[in-house]
């Protein structure tokens, strides 16, 4: 047991860190993160978006984008462990991010498996270069956890599909250039057998994007309406009716792409308990407070070392454990509890709104409002527990009433 790099890993780390130090600004402490020059609020993440695109392009040009992808598609042919080392090194710098995960992390791997060679050459290098942003048109009003229950209709006429319907919760649809899309091409087949998967240009006529305001106040996700949107059959990924299989590829990658919930963590609540007053003493001297701190530290450390166990599995060339689901459940719930407890400690001061990003209150308030979203996006807590029980522990699937009947006979959506 050791925390040392192998000689090759050390060489790679040095190369990465040399390039980063020449091209980016190092963080002075963990909270010294990238801040966009201009915060335009209300979903106007314009300067952050452009900064993220430009940083990705800079990396791409130097061979540091989409590391594990083949070189011919804009990657570096790097190993899994090299990708981890890069992420560790990059996290020490104040660099923008947060816009390319769906494209590079989810659409890319799906294209890699299902697109034609020509399409891969056409779409993947620009995706790696990062000026083009992709979004994920999966969820619908009647189908989220139950993704296979979607109703957006796809009809084929000659070589062209016509799409009608509605998607919802589509993160970043309002600034995306392309999208991956799951539709229903057969309403008479059983639910999982009638789906067909496409990629498309978000500027296609007939697409309307309407932002939805979130509980955080921002508007990062959207409703997306389709009225007779045309997609050439060549942009179908996988066979007609085989869209569920393709979607699963995307979803498996989604779980890898979502990491720790960002926001307040042990460090922040630890500092806060040292600073805040509790009956005339620092809160940290209170036994009840200390118990909570210990619990969160154990979760924080447990996730950190679970990640390290996975990394060393990668380093040995083994497949890492399917523990990504654990990370999201534990970190998102910890985030919410820490935020709530921290605001409790700040008492009435905590409920006075602050928009100053450097104010500790803004950080706790933002985390309290953001945590519920993280517990839903990319698989709810319940769905992730099912995944752990079924895929890690090998327990039976839930008994289903909807798998064998024709789709149009299944009840769905909200009846209230």
């Amino acid at each position, binding site marked *: 047991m050791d925390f040392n790099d192998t000689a090759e890993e050390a060489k790679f780390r040095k190369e990465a860190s040399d390039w980063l130090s020449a091209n980016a600004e190092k963080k002075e402490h963990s909270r010294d993160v990238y801040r966009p020059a201009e915060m335009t609020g209300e979903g106007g993440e314009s300067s952050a978006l452009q900064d993220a695109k430009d940083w990705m392009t800079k990396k791409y040009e130097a061979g540091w984008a989409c590391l594990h992808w083949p070189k011919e598609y804009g990657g570096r042919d790097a190993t899994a462990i090299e990708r981890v080392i890069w992420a560790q090194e990059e996290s020490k710098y104040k660099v923008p991010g947060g816009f390319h995960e769906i494209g590079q992390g989810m659409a890319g791997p799906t294209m890699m498996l299902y697109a034609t060679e020509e399409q891969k050459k056409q779409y993947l290098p620009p995706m790696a270069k990062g000026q083009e942003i992709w979004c994920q048109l999966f969820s619908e009003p009647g189908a989220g956890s139950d993704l296979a229950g979607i109703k957006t209709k796809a009809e084929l006429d000659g070589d062209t599909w016509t799409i009608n319907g509605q998607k919802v919760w589509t993160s970043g649809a309002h600034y995306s250039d392309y999208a991956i899309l799951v539709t229903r091409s057969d309403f008479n087949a059983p639910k999982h057998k009638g789906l067909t998967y496409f990629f498309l240009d978000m500027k296609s006529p007939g697409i309307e994007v309407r932002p939805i305001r979130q509980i955080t106040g921002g508007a990062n996700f959207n409703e997306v309406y389709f009225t007779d949107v045309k997609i050439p059959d060549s942009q179908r990924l996988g066979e007609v009716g085989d869209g569920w299989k393709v979607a699963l590829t995307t979803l498996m990658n989604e779980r890898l792409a979502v990491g720790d919930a960002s926001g307040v963590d042990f460090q922040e609540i630890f500092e806060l308990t040292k600073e805040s007053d509790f009956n005339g003493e620092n809160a940290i001297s209170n036994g009840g407070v200390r118990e909570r701190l210990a619990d969160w530290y154990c979760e924080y450390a447990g996730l950190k070392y*679970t990640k390290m166990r996975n990394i060393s599995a990668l380093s040995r060339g083994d497949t890492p454990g399917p523990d990504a689901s*654990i990370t999201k459940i534990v970190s998102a719930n910890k985030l919410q509890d820490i935020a709530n407890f921290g605001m409790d400690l700040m008492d009435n001061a905590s409920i006075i709104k602050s928009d100053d990003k450097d104010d500790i209150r803004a950080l706790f308030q933002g985390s309290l409002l953001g945590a519920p979203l993280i517990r839903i996006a990319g698989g709810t807590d319940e769905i992730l527990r099912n995944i752990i029980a079924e895929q890690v522990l090998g327990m039976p699937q*839930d008994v289903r009433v909807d798998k064998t009947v024709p789709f149009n006979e299944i009840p769905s959506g909200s009846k209230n």
Partner: protein
Amino acid sequence: MNFEFSDDQLVMKEEVRKLFEKEDSVKRNRNILEGDENFDKDLWNKVVEMGLTAITIPEEHGGIGLGFLELCVVAEEMGRAIAPIPYSSSVYLATTAIINSSNDDVKKEYLPKLAAGEMIGTFAHSEELGTPTSDNAKTTFQNGKLSGEKIAVPDGDIANLFVVSAKSGDKVGLFLVDADSKGVEVSKAECFDGSRSYANISFKDADAEIIEDSSSEAIDKLLNQAAVLFAFEQVGGAEASMNMAKEYAMGRYAFGRQIGSFQAIKHKLADMYISLTLARSNCYFGAWALGNDAPELPVAAATARVSATKAFYECSKENIQTHGGMGATWEFDCHLFYRRARLLSANIGGQSLWKDKLVSSIERSNLPQ
């Protein structure tokens, strides 16, 4: 980075697991619980034969001269097997205390006997209801003689060698007392987990040798080292409990279905797996810190201890619930793990104490970076 045990260590773990499976250690646990013996001597002999009491003892003192990492993997299997033997007392506690000692005479005298299983040691520390800390000892050491009352000494009626915490001047140190010495009185106490034996011990001017008397830190260090080892044992027990629950849930049918197909049961199992995984990962870091005698040991040990205690409690209690009425019976093994979980949570200080220690250690070390 290699945050995994070596192949040799994993082979060793497998061997120990096989031994306990072959010997049906869980059945033996029940025999001790129901019978009059205070430990399973036959199983103890097999463990000694395999060299498991000699792992961390240097070769010059009759040991095998391996490290704590090897002991960690063995500890996990001890926990999985809920072995009814005084292994933790003798090996994690007494042997480690003597290995830590700067007194070469004591090492020369006792380590070979502990390695060979001729002597069984234990740590006599607690004195009253409440949490044993390094500086609350009322037992005293003066001019080679030790006096005081120790309660709930694990395997106290089995051990023939006691490592005892006692005040010497203004320090609390560690001392060694032979169970046969004059002035030592052992009274067996019924234990909540009847597969293990406990005793109250009274010392009246008993002859004692010094293990460490120059600072109170020796006790803290010993407890931190033992905490990591106990945490591995707890993780082993937690995993066994989770697996038992899973097996039962897959084989039991109610309402026309496997109960393992009900989400209430699946999510229970998922939660067990989450708490087990976090505990295991924290144990690995504890093992690293223990093996390298790293400055991170206090934080790492408390983190491992707190999360493993939680994991074993959760897995062993929910295992009973998953078994429904069967889990409530004496006949099913669920309660053996539940009892052992309780015993392991108490033996070197309870959860509240270790949580407090954890936060204190974090405060001192300015972790996390």
